[in-house]
């Protein structure tokens, strides 16, 4: 008659009961107060019985359930949750509508959740009109933020009246009730029982008598007043016997729990627990008791004890514990992660359980998982995937499997997830149980294999070497691009249609190679000639191995080849080049000498042998210094150390030939460097310069001599100049004396002696005068260019001065002088003036008789010089004298014909030469002369 479902236990399969017992104290008190005397006694008794019964029922149920669980350890985990009969709700008090209602509500009310959602007032409409006051009271309390527990009647959809108990928890924000969350429990059965109990004492007696559990009514001191048949059975004694028992006789004193229980009962008024009892025969039994103190009608305290022999249950519990441990063990030792999430309002999922593998695999702490929403545990994007899959699984109501990769504290994990929705009896999903099979390592392995394959493909495809697999018969299995390129095909695919025999100029050639391969299994550096698609020979070098296909067992030739056609070409070119080089080396007119790193001779050419006079055999292995004298060795020491330092040089060095003579050579020497830049030897090109050296020596000596002569000449010239000056100066002295006295003699004795004497005196006078002129001329000549500095000279001005100075002579001779503009030059002004003057004087002096002298003066620029011309219409000069006229004191005419010392033109010559020019005459005798002189570049402005 008692429905046990009201207890509202939520129990996991781990055996950790989460009992939410309804607080019935208030109820009991209310009931107690409303009855008096016996009624109260009965009621209390009934309550106690009821309590005990409930507990026992719960235990029974748990035992049953857990036994069932045990049976369905792996596949029936979900069923646990289907037993939940409480309805959970969450109501938005502002919008006055439900946010969430659990399936339990559907059971309680008979209305579907959707109906509640659609009709916000449905919950109120179903309340029994007589009980509406309870809601009003409850509402007041909630508004004040007080948690309520109310019991009232509702009209079930099937029109039956039901009792429900609502525990409501308000959420007040800013003094305003915003949300109420609560649990709705159907307590109809309990209520009915209560009412029934209250209805009839008979019913009580019946209950008392017929109860399967033992019921003892006693005094607080422990004296038993009444015992029901069940109790008698448990104690294996009559009621009278039991009533005669003292507490000590009833209880096993070894149980220390009793005192604690009694204490608690005295304090609280009631107690529940397990106690060991003993029988008169000495046997003991474990019993679950529920005891409460109540006051009888006389106000005396009485106690009620309900006991149940739980020996059998204990055994079952022990077995259950074992099973649970096993389950735990299995749960926590399986290699897969197992987890359970509860579905909650708003399609949220909360972790309620995970096994140790889950924690180990993810590296998460249990407290960071259990009780957390999955979005707090699973990172994106796995989270979104999981939510999709959960939704799918819930929708399909069947298991869903997927692969996911998630980054957990332990690292990136790849797993295959399988989930199963746990449905209640109405087919609603209340939770999801899932397992994760970790395939991270497998994936890694797979990736490594894929990597390896990729690398292999890359090597295969991108290899510069041609790679080809063929069957011995010639069928091409595979090849890479390089192979196709080599053979002249555009892609490897083209080759797959070919037979390898086609790549050879003759089948026999390939057969030869195949038989060699079969014999040796591996061929290294096999050189062969293949036929390019164009028919050209393709020189290749190939490494081939023969192996058996592990699958088909067929023989496969695996070859890797390099095109060496170019190399072959290069080799033959190298050979030709070397031949040419050899010819050059042997025919060159230069000696070639190569030394190794120890500076010993390692190569000499024919020419060098000829030069040094030794045979090649005699020279090889000897140091270069062996072929040198002292002088050569000194040079060589420096040179060779420079060579070691990596420097190239060109220098002269003497060698001593086999015959002992010295030859001079010019060496163009360079170090020989290896790839690392280290000096591994030296190479020299040797040219015989002995003759050149000798010529140089001769030139040097003659140069020295020339230098000496030059210096001597300069010295002598200076001396001569000095001499001429001194001589002429000193000569003047006695001459002047002579002239003076002759003059005196003439003045005093001319005409007084005889005619001869006069003549003599004239001779003396003339000669001394002439000598005076000569000496002065000589003096002038020696002075030319000895004083002045070069100046800027305007020849036009000079000429004007000259013409002015010679005014008398020009007038007397009626000479006509014409000139074209003359240049400005750099020169000695005094000397230039004398030059112009002498030339003009000469032109006037050597005029033809009875002809007006015409003098034309001009200057012309040719290249880098000015050429001056003084032309006249005078007597002219015989060609044979054109040189002599410029020599000092040389005269073409007797003094009687033309006056003058014959120094004028020599002055001119000296002046022109002073200006680095030349002077010459172009003349036709009897017609006139043109005197030319040049002023060269360095005196041109």
């Amino acid at each position, binding site marked *: 008659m008692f429905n046990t479902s009201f207890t509202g236990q939520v129990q996991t399969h781990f055996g950790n009961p989460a009992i939410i017992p309804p607080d019935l104290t208030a109820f009991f008190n209310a009931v107690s107060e409303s009855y008096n005397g016996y009624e109260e006694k009965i009621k209390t008794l009934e309550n106690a019985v009821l309590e005990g019964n409930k507990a026992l029922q719960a235990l029974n149920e748990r035992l049953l359930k857990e036994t069932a669980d045990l049976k369905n350890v792996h596949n029936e985990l979900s069923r646990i949750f289907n037993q939940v009969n409480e309805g959970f709700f969450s109501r938005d008090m502002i919008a006055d509508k439900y946010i969430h209602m659990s399936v339990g509500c559907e059971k309680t009310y008979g209305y579907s959740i959707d109906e509640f959602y659609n009709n916000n007032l449905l919950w109120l409409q179903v309340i029994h009109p007589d009980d509406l006051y309870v809601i009003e009271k409850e509402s007041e309390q909630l508004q004040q933020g007080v948690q309520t527990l109310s019991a009232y009647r509702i009209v079930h959809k099937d029109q039956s009246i039901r009792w429900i108990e609502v525990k409501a928890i308000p959420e007040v924000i800013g003094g305003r009730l915003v949300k109420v969350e609560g649990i709705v429990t159907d307590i109809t059965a309990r209520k009915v029982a209560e009412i029934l109990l209250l209805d009839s004492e008979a019913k009580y007696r019946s209950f008392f008598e017929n109860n399967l559990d033992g019921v003892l009514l006693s005094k607080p001191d422990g004296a038993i007043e009444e015992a029901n048949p069940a109790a008698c059975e448990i104690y294996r004694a009559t009621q009278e016997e039991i009533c005669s028992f003292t507490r000590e006789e009833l209880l096993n004193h070894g149980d220390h729990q009793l005192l604690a229980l009694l204490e608690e009962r005295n304090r609280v008024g009631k107690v529940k627990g397990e106690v060991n009892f003993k029988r008169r025969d000495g046997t003991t039994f474990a019993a679950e008791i529920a005891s409460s103190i109540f006051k009888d009608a006389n106000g005396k305290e009485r106690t009620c004890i309900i006991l149940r022999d739980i020996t059998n249950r204990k055994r079952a519990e022990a077995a259950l514990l074992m099973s649970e441990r096993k389950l735990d063990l299995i749960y926590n030792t399986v290699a897969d992660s197992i987890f359970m999430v509860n579905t909650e309002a708003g399609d949220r999922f909360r972790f309620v359980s995970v096994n140790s593998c889950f924690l180990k695999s993810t590296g998460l702490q249990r407290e960071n998982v259990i009780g957390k929403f999955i979005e707090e545990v699973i990172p994106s994007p796995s989270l979104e995937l999981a939510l999709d899959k959960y939704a799918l699984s819930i929708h399909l109501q069947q298991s869903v499997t997927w692969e996911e990769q998630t980054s957990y504290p332990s690292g990136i994990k790849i797993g295959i997830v399988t989930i199963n929705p746990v449905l209640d009896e109405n087919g609603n999903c209340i939770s999801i149980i899932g397992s994760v099979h970790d395939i991270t390592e497998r994936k890694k392995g797979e990736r490594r294999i894929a990597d390896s394959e990729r690398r292999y493909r890359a090597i295969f495809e991108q290899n510069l070497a041609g790679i080809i697999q063929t069957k011995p018969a010639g069928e091409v299995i595979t090849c890479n691009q390089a192979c196709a390129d080599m053979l002249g095909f555009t892609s490897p695919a083209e080759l797959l249609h070919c037979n390898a025999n086609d790549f050879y100029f003759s089948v026999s050639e390939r057969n030869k190679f195949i038989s060699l391969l079969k014999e040796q299994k591996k061929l290294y550096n096999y050189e062969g000639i293949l036929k390019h698609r164009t028919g050209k020979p393709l020189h290749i070098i190939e490494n081939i191995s023969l192996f058996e296909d592990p699958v088909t067992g067929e023989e496969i030739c695996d070859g890797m080849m390099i095109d060496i056609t170019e190399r072959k070409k290069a080799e033959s070119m190298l050979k030709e080049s070397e031949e040419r080089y050899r010819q050059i080396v042997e025919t060159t007119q230069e000696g070639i000498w190569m030394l190794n790193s120890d500076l010993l001779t390692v190569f000499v050419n024919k020419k060098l042998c000829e030069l040094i006079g030794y045979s090649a055999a005699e020279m090889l292995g000897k140091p270069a210094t062996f072929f040198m004298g002292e002088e050569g060795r000194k040079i060589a020491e420096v040179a060779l150390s420079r060579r070691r330092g990596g420097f190239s040089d060109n220098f002269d060095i003497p060698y001593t030939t086999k015959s002992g003579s010295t030859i001079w050579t010019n060496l163009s020497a360079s170090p020989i460097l290896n790839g690392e830049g280290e000096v591994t030897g030296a190479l020299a090109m040797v040219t015989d310069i002995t003759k050149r050296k000798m010529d140089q020596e001769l030139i040097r000596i003659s140069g020295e001599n020339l230098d000496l002569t030059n210096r001597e000449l300069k010295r002598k010239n200076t001396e001569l100049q000095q001499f001429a000056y001194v001589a002429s100066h000193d000569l003047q002295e006695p001459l002047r004396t002579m002239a003076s006295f002759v003059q005196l003699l003439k003045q005093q004795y001319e005409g007084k002696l005889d005619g001869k004497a006069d003549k003599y005196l004239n001779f003396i006078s003339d000669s001394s005068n002439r000598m005076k002129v000569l000496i002065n001329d000589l003096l002038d000549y020696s002075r030319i260019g000895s004083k002045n500095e070069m100046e800027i000279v305007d020849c036009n001005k000079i000429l004007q001065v000259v013409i002015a100075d010679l005014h008398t002579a020009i007038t007397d001779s009626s000479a006509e002088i014409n000139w074209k503009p003359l240049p400005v030059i750099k020169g000695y002004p005094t000397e230039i003036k004398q030059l112009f003057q002498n030339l003009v004087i000469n032109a006037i002096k050597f005029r033809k008789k009875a002809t007006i002298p015409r003098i034309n003066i001009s200057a012309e620029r040719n290249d880098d010089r000015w050429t001056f011309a003084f032309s006249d219409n005078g007597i002219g000069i015989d060609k044979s004298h054109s040189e002599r006229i410029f020599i000092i004191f040389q005269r*073409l*005419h007797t003094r009687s014909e033309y006056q003058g010392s014959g120094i004028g033109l020599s002055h001119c010559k000296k002046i022109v030469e002073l200006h680095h020019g030349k002077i010459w005459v172009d003349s036709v005798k009897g017609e006139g002369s043109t005197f030319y002189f040049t002023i060269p570049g360095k005196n041109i402005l």
Partner: protein
Amino acid sequence: MNELEQLNCIMVIDDDEPTNFLNTMLIEDANCTKHLRIVESGLKALDYFENLLRKKKDIIAYIPPDLVFLDINMPCMNGWEFLEEYRNLQNEQPHRPVIIMLTTSLDPEDRVKAANIPEVAGFENKPLTSEMIDRLIKTHFAPTGYGRSLQ
């Protein structure tokens, strides 16, 4: 010097008037020649010899000289130039005078140069003296019954 010992003609080639005056005096005083010819330049001397050889043999003024005193330094044609021209005439010249270079030049090279010219018999420095004339005549002209002849 008697007539038989005298030379027929002495020629002096010099451009210097006082020198010629002195030489004339000296040669006349020495009484060693029947004729004396003073020629003022090489060109004139050459002209003399040409006339002597070809055109004007008969003309009394052009007497073939036995002894010629030749100056070097002369305007227009000097002694050396004269000698070159004279050599061209020489082959045709039946008469070969004794040519003595008479110069103020102290240059030994001139002496050497003169020695290498076959036509030149001697090299003397000015001034001309009677002793020099004596010595030259004794050296170059042996006394014969008919006067002096070239040795």
